[in-house]
């Protein structure tokens, strides 16, 4: 039985576990039909031309984990940004871990999707926001069909949420192969500000495939800073589908740090529904071996006077492969749009490759749109300069790569995250530079 068939046939078993009378269940039923029709994407589709899911779909994944598993904080502490006080929404093999979490209902809701989908007090928010912007493609539909658990974050208006929120999905390896469908909803009210850190971490080398959907709504003048730390084992794959719907004068920033995993596909979509909106997407990708990272971004400029900024850096070693596909659509009404896109890459090995493709569809005539992509090697004259000052080749190389990706970290507002990322990079490059950039 193929994974698709297995998923479709397990939907009935899934129905026994959830409330089938809730309005959400109609959405799920629609979604499983849609998945049945669409299936998994293949390389024949333009948006998947350079990324094949074949290798990750071949495992016999458990769709629902059989056991509830526990983890001790001390054993997984290193995956947390533990230096600062945070709200935490933690899952182990797809199940909520109250032991590791720290949720709140004190003026804001930082809790569970399962609660939000079942309790009457959340009904209005769910009706207004749930599955309103997620796309209807096969993967998102699959997630919607099995949507039961994930993070639910609702910030009412005029709240500055000082503590960042960490969402971590651990997989313990107790299943021989595990597929997860986390579903997150983030609704940020007018003038509110929230910071979110998301991470997926496998603890063994058993294969894990995560197909995640996150819907983010930023209301007027709201600010969202979202950090995705993708530094998983090479047995774990992640398909991240994130949809951001912005209202006027809101500011949404998504940083994606992709350092590990077998296959990572980031589908990151921004829809600007209002004026003077700012959307920022930044990323650093540093991979090696046979790893594959694919950034597929979309910014839909619908109204006038908005901005979007994309800045993705990639460093590819060994036989790793990268894809950047950045689409910017500027509607006819979206005059005075300022859209900027950059994708710069360094290939360290002869076998590494990157496919980068900017895609601009501009229907307005008074806009500023720029895009640029570069693929290169490290500057040899810079290498000689550093080495002539006594910095050995490996360290010089690392220093230049740090410098290359450094400006992406400028917009990271939480110093502990910046530190953590710097350390991960140093670790990836196998050096101890001796200072934090």
């Amino acid at each position: 039985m193929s994974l698709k068939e297995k998923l479709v046939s397990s939907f009935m078993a899934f129905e026994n576990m959830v409330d089938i009378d809730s309005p959400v269940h109609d959405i799920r039923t629609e979604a499983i039909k849609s998945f049945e029709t669409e299936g998994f994407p293949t390389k024949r589709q333009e948006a998947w031309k350079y990324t094949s899911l074949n290798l990750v779909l071949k495992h016999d994944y458990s769709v629902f984990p059989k056991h509830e598993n526990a983890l001790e904080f001390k054993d997984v502490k290193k995956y947390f940004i533990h230096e600062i006080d945070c709200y935490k929404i933690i899952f182990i093999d797809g199940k909520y871990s109250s032991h590791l979490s720290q949720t709140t209902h004190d003026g804001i809701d930082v809790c569970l999707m399962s609660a939000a989908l079942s309790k009457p007090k959340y009904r209005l928010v769910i009706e207004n926001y749930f599955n309103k912007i997620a796309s209807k493609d096969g993967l998102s539909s699959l997630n919607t069909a099995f949507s039961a658990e994930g993070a639910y974050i609702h910030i009412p208006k005029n709240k500055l949420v000082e503590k960042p929120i960490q969402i971590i999905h651990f997989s313990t390896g107790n299943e021989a192969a595990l597929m997860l469908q986390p579903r997150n909803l983030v609704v940020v009210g007018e003038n509110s500000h929230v910071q979110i850190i998301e991470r997926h971490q496998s603890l063994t080398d058993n294969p894990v495939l995560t197909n995640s959907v996150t819907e983010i709504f930023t209301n007027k003048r709201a600010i969202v800073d979202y950090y995705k730390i993708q530094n998983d084992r090479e047995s774990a794959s992640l398909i991240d589908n994130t949809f951001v719907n912005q209202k006027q004068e809101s500011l949404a920033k998504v940083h994606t740090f992709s350092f590990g995993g077998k296959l990572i596909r980031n589908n990151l979509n921004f829809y600007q529904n209002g004026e003077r909106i700012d959307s920022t997407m930044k990323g650093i990708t540093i991979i090696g071996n046979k790893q594959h990272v694919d950034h597929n971004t979309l910014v839909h400029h619908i109204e006038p006077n908005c901005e979007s900024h994309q800045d993705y850096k990639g460093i590819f070693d060994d036989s790793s492969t990268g894809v950047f596909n950045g689409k910017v659509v500027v509607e006819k009404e979206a005059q005075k749009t300022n859209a900027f896109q950059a994708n710069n890459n360094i290939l360290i090995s002869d076998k590494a490759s990157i496919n980068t493709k900017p895609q601009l569809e501009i229907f307005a005539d008074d806009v500023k749109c720029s895009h640029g992509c570069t693929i290169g090697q490290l500057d040899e004259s810079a290498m000689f300069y550093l080495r002539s000052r006594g910095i050995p080749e490996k360290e010089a190389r690392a220093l230049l790569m740090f410098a290359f990706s450094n400006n992406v970290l400028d917009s990271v507002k939480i110093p502990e995250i910046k530190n953590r990322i710097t350390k991960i990079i140093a670790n990836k490059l196998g050096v101890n530079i001796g200072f934090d950039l």
Partner: protein
Amino acid sequence: MLKINNLHASVEDKAILKGINLHVKPGEVHAIMGPNGSGKSTLASVVAGKEEYEVDEGEILLNGENIDELGPEERAHKGVFLSFQYPVEIPGVSVTNFMKTAINETRKAKGLEDMPANEMLKMIREKSEMLEIDRKFLSRSLNEGFSGGEKKRNEIFQMAMLEPKLAILDETDSGLDIDALRIVANGVNKLKSKDNAVIVITHYQRLLDYIVPDYVHVLHDGKIVKSGSKDLAHELEAKGYDWIKEEVNA
């Protein structure tokens, strides 16, 4: 200190150095002059270990050791310093962090611990004051957006920090106004001792008024064709290079 014997070097099969002989003893200042394209910068790069140059014949001995097989960083650890004619811009790395890395990597190579932070700061302060470098300048990205003069001053600042045994200044005077030239030259003079040596590569005699050489060599078509005292530099300034070319051809 430095002994170059019959050095032949080429880049992409094009011969540039065609038999250089040079002997530099501790405490000496040598000037190498010569027209454009005579091989001055190549000589500097080959001694510093730039890998795109191929040494075809001859040898470079540093304190008796053949350094031909050593990488640029290993030569730096042994005390070779090249002040670049065109210092490379490195966005994203501050001057201070760059110096810290360079000094501590050099110490590591010698089996020493990292320099304590307070000692490093003190040294940075002293050396930057000596070269009249603004402190703010040190937190800027290395050479990025620096003026020509700032870049050259920064090179000598690095030299002061690294305290090399053999410093090669490749056209450090180009792009400097007279005040900057004086500051840079004073810096070099303060660093001079009986234990280290300086090779000054220049087109013009101007810098040699400040950094007075013990020997002046004229490089032409990959060979040292004339050597003399500092008076030779004055003669070149007055008469140009043509008479040397004629002498060589005769």
